[in-house]
C-alpha cells in the first residue's frame, strides 16, 4: 500500500522526536534531578509510531514501564511528561506516578502499570467497555516479551477472542527482560501465532520497520473497528540502552559481544530516513529543520519542568479516592 508523502514524513518526524527526547532524558539523567527509574525506548521507536499513526485521539492505549514512546506517539503532552519525570505537580500524573506511570486521558491514555503484564487485562477491559458502549473505538495494548511469559496474557487473549473485543495486542519483543534473554524464559515461538486466523489475526513483523508495523496495525485497527475482534502483532525489535535508565548504567556481560552494535546498524530511524531521502520524499535540510523544531520543544519542556513547583506537602493525601 502506498502511503501519502505527508504520512511518511510524519512517521519519520514522530520517531525522530521520540528518539531526541529519549536522548535528552538520557543526557540529563545523571544530573540526578529526575528522581524516577526511567526506561528508555531508544531503538524501539518504530513500534509506538507505526501503531499509533493508525489511531484516533479517542482510541485507547495501554502501556508499560517503558512507556515514553507510546505516550508521545499517541499525542501526550511533552511538557507534562518531562514535568512528571522531575516529580512536579504539573506532571501528567501530578508527580505521583513518575516515569513508569504516565497518563493523559484526553488522548485515551488512562495510565500504565509498572507490573509487567499488568496493563494487558486492563486494556482488554477497556475493549469490553467499548463493545458494551457500542463505540467505534479500539483499545491497543503494548507489552514486552517479558509480559508474554505471564499467564495473564493467555487469559486476556482468550477473553478478547471469546467476546470478539476491539483489542489489539502489540508484543514489543526487544528480546530481553532486564538481563534475561527471551530464550531463557520462553519455550518456543509465541504460541499465539498458532491461533486460527478467524479468531485472532496474528502477525509477526519487523518492529524496526515502521511501515511494516504501520501496515499490520492498519489491518488490525480496521478489523477491530468493524467488529471482527482482536489481533495480535509481534514486533521484533531491540533495546539499545540498559534496562533501566541510560547507557552508562547498563550492566555489562549479559549480551553477546557485538549484539548492541549490530542492532545499532538496524536503527529504525536511520533506515527510514535513508529510504525517504533516497526516494526524494524529504531533503536533508528538511530533516535538519525537524531536528531543530524538536530540540526547541525539548528545551521548552525541560525549562518548564525544571522550574515547575513540586507537589505541596499538604497535598500528600489527595487522590487516594475520587470524591
Amino acid at each position, binding site marked *: 500500500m502506498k502511503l501519502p508523502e505527508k504520512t511518511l514524513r510524519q512517521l519519520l518526524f514522530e520517531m525522530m522526536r521520540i528518539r531526541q527526547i529519549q536522548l535528552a532524558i538520557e543526557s540529563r539523567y545523571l544530573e540526578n534531578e529526575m528522581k524516577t527509574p526511567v526506561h528508555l525506548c531508544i531503538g524501539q521507536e518504530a513500534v509506538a509510531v507505526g501503531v499509533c499513526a493508525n489511531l484516533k485521539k479517542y482510541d485507547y492505549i495501554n502501556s508499560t514501564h517503558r512507556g515514553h514512546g507510546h505516550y508521545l506517539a499517541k499525542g501526550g503532552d511533552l511538557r507534562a511528561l518531562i514535568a512528571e519525570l522531575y516529580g512536579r505537580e504539573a506532571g501528567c500524573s501530578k508527580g*505521583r506516578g513518575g516515569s513508569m506511570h504516565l497518563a493523559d486521558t484526553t488522548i485515551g491514555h488512562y495510565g500504565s502499570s509498572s507490573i509487567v503484564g499488568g496493563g494487558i487485562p*486492563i486494556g482488554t*477491559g477497556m475493549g469490553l467497555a467499548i463493545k*458494551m*458502549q457500542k463505540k467505534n473505538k479500539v*483499545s491497543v495494548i503494548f507489552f514486552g516479551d517479558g509480559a508474554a511469559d505471564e499467564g495473564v496474557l493467555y487469559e*486476556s487473549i*482468550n477473553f478478547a477472542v471469546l467476546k470478539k473485543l476491539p483489542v489489539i495486542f502489540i508484543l514489543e519483543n526487544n528480546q530481553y527482560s532486564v538481563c534475561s534473554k527471551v530464550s531463557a524464559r520462553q519455550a518456543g515461538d509465541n504460541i499465539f501465532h498458532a491461533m486460527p486466523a478467524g479468531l485472532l489475526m496474528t502477525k509477526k513483523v519487523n518492529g524496526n520497520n515502521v511501515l511494516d508495523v504501520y501496515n499490520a496495525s492498519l489491518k488490525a485497527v480496521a478489523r477491530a473497528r468493524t467488529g471482527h475482534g482482536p489481533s495480535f502483532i509481534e514486533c521484533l525489535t531491540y533495546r539499545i540502552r540498559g534496562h533501566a535508565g541510560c547507557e552508562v548504567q547498563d550492566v555489562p556481560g549479559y549480551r553477546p559481544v557485538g549484539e548492541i552494535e549490530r542492532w545499532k546498524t538496524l536503527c529504525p530511524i536511520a533506515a527510514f530516513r535513508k529510504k525517504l531521502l533516497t526516494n526524494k520524499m524529504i531533503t536533508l535540510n528538511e530533516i535538519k529543520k525537524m531536528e531543530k523544531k524538536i530540540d526547541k520543544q525539548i528545551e521548552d519542556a525541560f525549562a518548564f519542568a525544571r522550574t515547575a513547583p513540586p507537589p505541596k506537602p499538604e497535598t500528600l493525601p489527595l*487522590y487516594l479516592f475520587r470524591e
Partner: protein
Amino acid sequence: MTWSKTKQKIIEPAFSNNEGAEGKRILCYDEAIREALQLALSRDKRVFVMGQGVDDPDGMFGATRNLHLEFGPERVFDTPLAEGAMMGVAIGAALAGMRPVYFHNRPDFLLLAMDQLVNHAAKWSYMFGGAAFVPLVVWACIGRGWGSAAQHSQALQGLFMHIPGLKLVMPGTCHDAKGLMLAAIADQNPVLILDHRFNFNYKGMVPPEAYTVPIGKGVIRRKGRDVTIVAVSHLVIDACHAAQEAAAYGVEAEVIDPRTLRPLDEEIILNSVAKTGRLIIADCGWKTGGITAEIGAMVAEKGFTYLKAPIKRIACPDLPTPAACNLDEACSIGRDNIKKALLELTR
C-alpha cells in the same frame, strides 16, 4: 441513574427482632442484594454484573438469579476461570466509563486476583494524581462449614483491610446489604463487599426504593453501658444475642456494627468505649494481624485513657480450616464465645 440523588438512609431499623416491622416489607438477604443489583442495572446502563456462575440457574446464592434473563447476557455474564485477568478486565471497563460489579463466590479465589486488586485497582486513582479512577465493586462470599476446608473457608477481611485505596464493606443486615451494595455501585472507587454465607439466612425489613447506606459509618445495634462489642458481619446478630443473655447477669453491652471496615468509623467505637471502658472485638477471620488487631490497637492508641480493662479479641484460631466437622466447629466463633468474653470482662 443519578447516584448523587439517591436517598441516603442513615437510620437502620431495629433488625434482630424486626421490632416495628409491622406492615413493612420483609425480604431475604439474597433478595435484598438482588433488588439492589436489579435497581442499579435498570437505572444506570453503565452497570453490569460479571462473575463465575452469575447466570447459573440459581444465580450466585440467589442474589443474581435470572438477572441475565432480564438484562441480557451482555450485561450479566459468566466469565472464564481466570480471576487474575478478569479483575483487570473489570478495572479496564471501569476506567472506560462502566460500573462493573464483579462477583466471586469465595474470597479464596480473590487471591488469584491480588495483583490486579491491590497493585492496580487500589492504586490507580492515586498513582495518576486523580486523572483516572476505578468505580468497581468486587463482591465475595465468606463462610465456612460442611467440611469446605482450608481453601474454601477463608474470611480474608484481615488482608483487605490493610490496603489503602480499597474500601471494605461487610453488611450485617438485609437492609444494609441492599443499601451498601447501592452505595458501593455509586461510589467512584473500588469497593470490596464481603458477605458472610450465614447472612443469607436472614430476613429483614428492606425498603423497596433505591437507597444507599453510607460507606464509612457504623451503627449502634444495641445500647449498653458496661462493655462495647464491635462485631463484624454475621457476628453482629450473635453479639446482640450474647448481650441479651448477659443482661440476665446484669451486664449491659453496647453492640456496634461498623458495617464498613475501611474506612472505619473510629468515632462511634471510641465514643462507646469512652462510656463503657471495656472493649470486645469479634471477627470471623483469623486473629493475628486481622480486624481485631487493628481495632484493638486503634483503641489502645486513641482511647487508652477510657480503657478500664484489657481489650478482648475474639477471632478464629490462626489455622487453615480443617475439614472434619468437629474440628471446624471448634474453630468457629459465635454467640457463646462472645457471651463468655462479656462475663469474663465484667466479673
